[in-house]
């Protein structure tokens, strides 16, 4: 190799390393650790960037934040058992420079409140209440039991998996909502144009209300589901794969626009209402 070329290669390597180093240096890493007691409350407000919450043993809340530029800073505070984290955007910041990525470890019984405009938001394996609010980001909640789950989104995709023994309330304007193995005493989904997809057996003794304006509603249940189901769409098609035992309704049941009936012991109440969306109760 000629000396000139060798020098050029060395310089190029230095430049590449410098750029990488600069890129890494541009991201700021922050770690916070809080000692908490039983059932702590953790709130994180992050305009841009993902927030992920997982459980960990012990009585600590550990927050790991990656700031994508110096145009954003993290405020953190603790008042007893209440932890508050927020991303503070500085003038001149935008969705890229103002982004902060949060990875949070909490005790499993913690109550968690997450806000993010762009998300995504993720929470898993918790027993406390989970409140997630996002504008456009995806929202994922899985393996939560005995805690209430509240989700509010504008057009982010919402996915709930294996949620049991708690209240679930979801409000989505245009984001689709998918519930898989979600059961509990009260399950409510309020959607405008987003689709609602439910796949589960509706548990026992619960109240399920899936309503939309124009979004389709599709509920898939096994043949052993025990439900008292009422479905109605003002302008959309309504159909059921099950042969239901007739039950009383306060409105006239018009074939193709509504159905009502029971399966099994009618342990859970299921209401599927839409203004113009299609409703389909599928047999798994």
């Amino acid at each position, binding site marked *: 190799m000629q000396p000139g070329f060798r020098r050029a290669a060395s310089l190029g390597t230095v430049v590449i390393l410098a750029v990488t180093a600069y890129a890494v240096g541009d991201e700021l890493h922050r770690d916070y650790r809080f000692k908490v007691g039983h059932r702590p409350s953790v709130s994180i407000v992050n305009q841009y960037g993902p927030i992920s919450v997982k459980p960990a043993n012990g009585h600590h809340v550990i927050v790991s934040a990656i700031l994508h530029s110096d145009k954003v800073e993290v405020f953190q505070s603790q008042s007893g058992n209440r932890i508050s984290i927020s991303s503070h955007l500085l003038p001149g910041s935008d969705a890229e420079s103002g982004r902060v990525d949060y990875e949070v470890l909490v005790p499993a019984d913690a109550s968690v409140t997450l806000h993010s405009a762009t998300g995504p938001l993720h929470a898993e394996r918790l027993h406390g209440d989970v409140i997630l*609010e996002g504008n*456009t980001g995806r929202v994922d909640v899985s393996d939560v039991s005995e805690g209430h789950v509240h989700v509010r989104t504008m057009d982010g995709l919402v996915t709930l998996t294996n949620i049991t023994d708690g209240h679930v309330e979801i409000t989505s*304007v*245009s984001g689709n909502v998918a519930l898989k193995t979600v059961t509990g005493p009260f399950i409510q989904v309020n959607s*405008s144009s987003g689709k609602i997809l439910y796949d589960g057996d509706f548990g026992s003794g619960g109240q399920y209300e899936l309503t939309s304006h124009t979004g389709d509603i599709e509920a898939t249940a096994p043949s052993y589901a025990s439900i008292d189901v009422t479905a109605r769409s003002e302008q959309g098609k309504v159909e059921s794969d099950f042969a239901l035992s007739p039950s009383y309704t306060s409105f006239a049941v018009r074939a193709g626009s509504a159905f009502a009936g029971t399966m099994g012991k009618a342990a859970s109440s299921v209401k599927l*209402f839409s203004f113009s969306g299609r409703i389909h109760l599928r047999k798994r």
Partner: protein
Amino acid sequence: MTCDEFQRVLPESWGAQSSEEQEHVKSCRSCADLVLDLQAISDTARLLQATDEPSPRVWNSIEIALRREGLIHEARPLRSFVFAWPQRRLAWLMPLTAVLALVFGVLIFERGGRSPGMSSGVETRQSTPGEFTLASAEEEQLLKMVADRAPALRPVFESDLRNVDAYIKDAELSARNNPNDEIAQQSLMNAYEQRAMVYQMALDRSVP
């Protein structure tokens, strides 16, 4: 049509209301009551005119007495823009019209035609329970606020606001047509909840 718009055009269209105005009267109890009150006043006024107009002899006597006192002179043609009453028969209409206008104005005011916080140039509607409310200027202000903070989010908010407004419109119509239908009522609540959520998200988390 909003209540404000209806009450603004009512004096002009009295007795010959458009289908839009008639539709509004059917759907708005407040404006319907106003129309009934005005109709009652109008009916009573006609009775007064027919029964209480003095005979011509009375007018002659009054005129003679006033001329003797020097309080009136020979009639002079009016040259101002104020119109003259060509016939004495219609003279009672002037004070009657004034009374009607006064009563109309009082009724409008008492019924809350001016809501607190309303400013000129802002297109707003009074919202009463169960009445569809679309305030385009208000929403535009909200979207501007969103755009100032996060320009990329404005299209999302705009699209979802339209979405939600359509939901409210349909839900209100359904609830109005089926007042005893609890499903329709619940849909309306859901629709308003969605709108409240969008507003709250737009107003939440300000950027310094």
